[in-house]
């Protein structure tokens, strides 16, 4: 099966030279979801924005990003405008700020339809109502005429999903789609996303720092640390037998019902500051299993879907 989105050795430098994404490779398949996890500031969002070609002016990207074989990094701006919304789309963490406060929800959902399918306003508005009800909003007709501040957080996120999916894109990037929501609403949004993935064969790139979200909604997972993907593979494998010490530490730091009453295991130290150049493995200063060789170079272990970057992996 060939990948829907194929990212290879993607590097991104922000204006000013900070390299926030470093040699990142991953694939998203149709009908599957890839979870991109990591701490704040590890480059998850930058990687997604680089794929969408939405990094700020002056940012430099290298490597290759291919959507069904079409290279995105070299495509002209006009082609990217065409692809955005119709082939690949994105939703954001904060549904409150991702909706324009002065436009009705319906007209924002219709935005993509008027841009890509050149629908007349009335047809687009009618389609927006259908889309709203397809993401599980009861009373869609009324809600389409509402302004963002009149909706709850969960409903706003549903509306954003409806807007992102209006033109039936094949790839959806969801940047922390549940972080700003209540736990119960989180579960609803996740099941909406996984449902859409199954029904429409949507490829889903889910960015999150919540391992629970990954295990609930993802088929594959890629763990990012300081701009690099340190380990990736199918969720079940990675979670049951993590190889990279960082993945293992993240999994240990999770609260669980079994360890009630015990303090959570915390990972000592800090993520290296943005753009700092560190030879060898970036995790080395915080790693209890570090060897001398870790300071020199990073190994690439594994083939295909299951890969990690460690000289001294957990479980050896």
């Amino acid at each position: 099966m060939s990948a829907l989105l194929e990212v290879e050795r993607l590097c991104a430098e922000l204006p000013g030279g900070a390299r926030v994404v470093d040699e990142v490779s991953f694939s998203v398949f149709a009908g599957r979801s890839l979870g991109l996890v990591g701490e704040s500031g590890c480059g998850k969002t930058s990687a997604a924005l680089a794929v969408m070609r939405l990094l700020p002016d002056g940012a430099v990207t290298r490597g290759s990003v291919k959507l069904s074989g079409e290279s995105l990094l070299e495509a002209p701006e006009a082609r990217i405008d065409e692809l955005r919304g119709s082939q690949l789309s994105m939703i954001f963490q904060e549904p409150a700020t991702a909706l324009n406060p002065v436009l009705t929800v319906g007209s924002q959902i219709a935005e993509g339809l008027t841009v890509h399918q050149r629908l007349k306003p009335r047809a687009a508005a009618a389609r927006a109502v259908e889309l709203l009800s397809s993401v599980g909003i009861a009373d869609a007709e009324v809600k389409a005429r509402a302004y963002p501040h009149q909706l709850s957080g969960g409903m706003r996120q549903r509306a954003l999903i409806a807007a992102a999916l209006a033109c039936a894109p094949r790839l959806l990037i969801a940047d922390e789609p549940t972080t700003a929501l209540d736990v119960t609403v989180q579960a609803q949004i996740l099941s909406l996303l996984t449902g859409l993935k199954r029904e429409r064969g949507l490829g889903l790139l889910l960015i999150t720092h919540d391992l629970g979200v990954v295990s609930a909604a993802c088929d594959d997972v890629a763990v990012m640390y300081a701009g690099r993907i340190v380990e990736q593979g199918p969720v079940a494998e990675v979670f049951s037998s993590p190889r990279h010490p960082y993945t293992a530490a993240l999994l240990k730091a999770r609260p669980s019902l079994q360890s009630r009453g015990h303090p959570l295991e915390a990972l000592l130290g800090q993520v290296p500051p943005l753009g700092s150049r560190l030879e060898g493995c970036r995790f080395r200063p915080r790693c209890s299993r570090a060897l001398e060789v870790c300071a020199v170079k990073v190994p690439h272990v594994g083939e295909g879907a299951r890969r990690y970057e460690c000289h001294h992996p957990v479980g050896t």
Partner: protein
Amino acid sequence: MTPAEELVLPWRPAAKKGRGRLGLACLGGLVVTALGADLLASDLPLAVRVDAHTYLLPALTRPPQLRLSNQGTLAQTAEWQLGTPIPFGPNQTFATATGRTDAAPWAPDREHLLGTDELGRDVLARLIHGSRASLSIGFGAVLISLLVGLLLGVLAGWYRGLVDACLSRLTEMAFTFPTFFFFIALAGVLRFTSALPLVIGMGLLRWPDIARLARAETLKLRELDFVLAARVLGASDARILWRHVVPNALPPVLVAATFGVAGAILMECALAFLGIGVPAPTASWGELLFQAQRYLVHPGAWWLAVFPGLAVAGTVLTMNLVGEALQDLQSRS
């Protein structure tokens, strides 16, 4: 909280709200007065039956048969007439229904509530009709500067870089341009035959405030998620600017525009007071003040200056109240 603050704080927000409402009501009144000036004060009545003919709204239609009549003469000849509230036109000289013949200016009395000028023209009628010139100059000029300022400010904030540098320098240059003295100099070279050059000139010179605000708002808005979200959906720059940036940049710009209306009205008055303004015989408040200069001290016709002055002050106050209310509304949301 000090006792004084305790006294003040409880009623302050309410008082602010009240002031905003007062401002809006006064603005509404002004606009209605300006639009309906011909129905409020006219030499011809609202309806009249004379010589076996019924005329409806002759004040607006001005039928040629009534060319030589006014509400004073019609009172004698007509079967019946329905007069305007102020039965005098703005340019009707020695207007009187009681047939007085003494020398004008006439002081305020029961017939001319605010008196007349030296040609016997009713001051209240001229004030009512003058509101048209003053308001249309104020709003017209601000409308032009709103368009120019929004366009330049939004473009500067959106594209940044070289575009921003050029537009911002242009804004600064326009900011230092002495509009008032420019008009005085211009009046030395050519004569204004209508208010249009004033409106266009003020509009094209008074946009820097608005451009600066629009630029600042755009700089803020361009980083917001919903702008990013619109780009994710494939919206073009033009579409994002028109649908997402401009509407959200409007509130602070509108506040500035409201104060700008007051400023433009004041400037028109100042220019007219120096004899550079709307050409006679069109009534404008500034022109009324200009005429008042000569009769103020001798024969002491205070009413010529005081009432137009109050009208100007009241209008400026109204616009400031509305602007303050808008500002308040916006800082709360």
